[in-house]
């Protein structure tokens, strides 16, 4: 495990060094990512310009949820966002190279890239969080701090697991990029709003099947001390880390199964 982390740092470090070499273009990309993310939040403000509340949620509360989701997603994107390009790796047969090396294939795919510019999006999330925390009067207790802090790594793990599962489809379809995006970027979009504004089927999908509600909706309910408008069991609000571990295991199994269906490419 420690060895894997050290190797990850080495592999990613090499990538980052080559990115930062072009300082000017790197800075521009960083700023660009931040501006795009900022405009995205403006869309939330536009909604609240027209309505004071979204279901039972105020603008500050939605901002909190939004920030939590954005930060979580930004870190996920930073860590494994390059899974977007994974179908190409499969199609070109370059996955072959990873299979002849004595390391896990998922690990190698994850360690193959690291786009530092995606920190721009995380910066936006942090800013929105600062705004939300200063505008909300949260009664801080130790458990609330713990739930808030734990929700970020748990959320990263949940988003990552969903991403890995959908990326695995590439082993069969070889071109599932857009379909995967619908669930990854789409998932982030859905997680930014309270799930009680969605229809029942979408809610159930998010709470139970693709457990994005555990990324921030349930932890946010607890931290904000809000009554669950859906009246779901309170214990769900503490379950994010456990759910994260469970979906990570599922994703690992799906990946393993998928790799055995790898067909390589001609030649």
């Amino acid at each position, binding site marked *: 495990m420690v*060895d894997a982390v*050290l*190797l990850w740092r*080495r*592999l990613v470090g*090499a*990538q980052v060094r*080559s990115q930062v070499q072009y300082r000017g273009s790197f800075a521009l990309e960083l700023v660009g990512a931040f501006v795009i993310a900022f405009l995205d939040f403006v869309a939330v403000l536009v909604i609240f310009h027209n309505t004071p509340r979204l279901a039972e949620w105020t603008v500050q509360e939605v901002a909190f949820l939004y920030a939590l989701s954005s930060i979580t997603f930004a870190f996920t994107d930073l860590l494994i966002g390059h899974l977007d390009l994974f179908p190409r790796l499969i199609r070109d*047969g*370059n996955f*072959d*190279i990873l*299979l*002849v*090396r*004595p*390391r*896990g294939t998922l690990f190698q795919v994850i360690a193959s890239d690291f786009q530092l510019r995606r920190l721009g999006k995380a910066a936006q999330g942090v800013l929105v969080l600062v705004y939300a925390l200063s505008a909300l009067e949260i009664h801080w207790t130790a458990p609330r701090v713990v739930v808030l802090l734990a929700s970020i790594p748990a959320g990263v793990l949940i988003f990552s697991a969903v991403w890995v599962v959908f990326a695995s489809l590439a082993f069969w379809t070889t071109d599932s990029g857009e379909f995967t995006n619908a669930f990854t970027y789409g998932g982030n979009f859905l997680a930014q709003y309270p799930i009680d504004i969605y229809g029942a089927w979408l809610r159930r999908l998010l709470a139970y099947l693709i457990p994005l509600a555990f990324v921030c909706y349930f932890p946010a309910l607890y931290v904000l001390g809000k009554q669950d408008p859906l009246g779901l069991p309170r214990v769900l609000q503490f379950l994010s880390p456990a759910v994260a571990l469970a979906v990570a295991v599922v994703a690992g199994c799906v990946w393993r199964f998928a790799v*055995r269906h*790898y*067909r*390589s490419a*001609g*030649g």
Partner: protein
Amino acid sequence: MIEVEHLQKRFVVRRGRLRRERHVVEAVRDVSFRIDRGELVGYLGPNGAGKSTTIKMLTGILVPSGGRISVAGMEPSRQRVELARRIGAMFGQRIQLWWDLPLLDSFELLRHIYRVPADRYRASLARFCEVLELDPFLHTPVRQLSLGQRIRGELTAAMLHGPELLFLDEPTIGLDVVAKQRVRDFLVEINRQDGVTVLLTTHDLGDIERLCERLLVIDHGSLIWDGRIAELRVRYGDERTLVVDLEEPAPPLRVEGARVERVEGPRQWLRFRGPAAELTARVAAAAQVVDLQIAEPDIEEIVRRIYTGK
């Protein structure tokens, strides 16, 4: 070192846009062979014959549909990671080096991926740098290397962790004569000096002729030859060709013991068996000859005969 029994690989291919039809393609039908430690074996076959598919199953990239494989005592698709430490692989058409990084950085990363101890790494790197003359471009980003330089880098990458077995899929593809020779010399050296077992697929018959003692030939997914190159010559290569340049264009010559294979203006190609002396005398008697030349069948010709089953 390698044992393969009744190996099979089927791919299911779906064709058509709307009504998708399932087709089963048998890339490898029934292949069995054995390679001992220290051998250098060529694996030959036309495009789509199943060469690469076999190599991919031997290295654990593809899971076989049937049959049994044992490489260094392991089952590749089940013990992939363990096997990967003991084998090296290089695919002429894939890039395993890091595109944007200097060559040396790629080697460093591989050292950590394979957990090669520092002193052993330094020793083997120094050796490969010398044999493959890597020093001039060790600090150049891989994307700026010429194909020949990159292939030399790839070979080093495949050998840095000291594998006992090296798989090469078309290692000399696209290389010029000088670069090809360098690669071949390198392969001979690691085979003779380090006792590395080498299995290489190629289209380049020069590779086969200069490197391999033993040849496996596959066509349509089945092995059609497994034996020494010398035997191959005896079996398929006893017919030679006499190239005759006449003074002026003539109809095909009729001489005993030979048949005209080709006519091009005043030049004719005669296929014959046995000693050439009598035949040349007969040809000289039959026509006004300017020049004569005897061509031994080259491996390319022999392989063509195997493929066509003659």
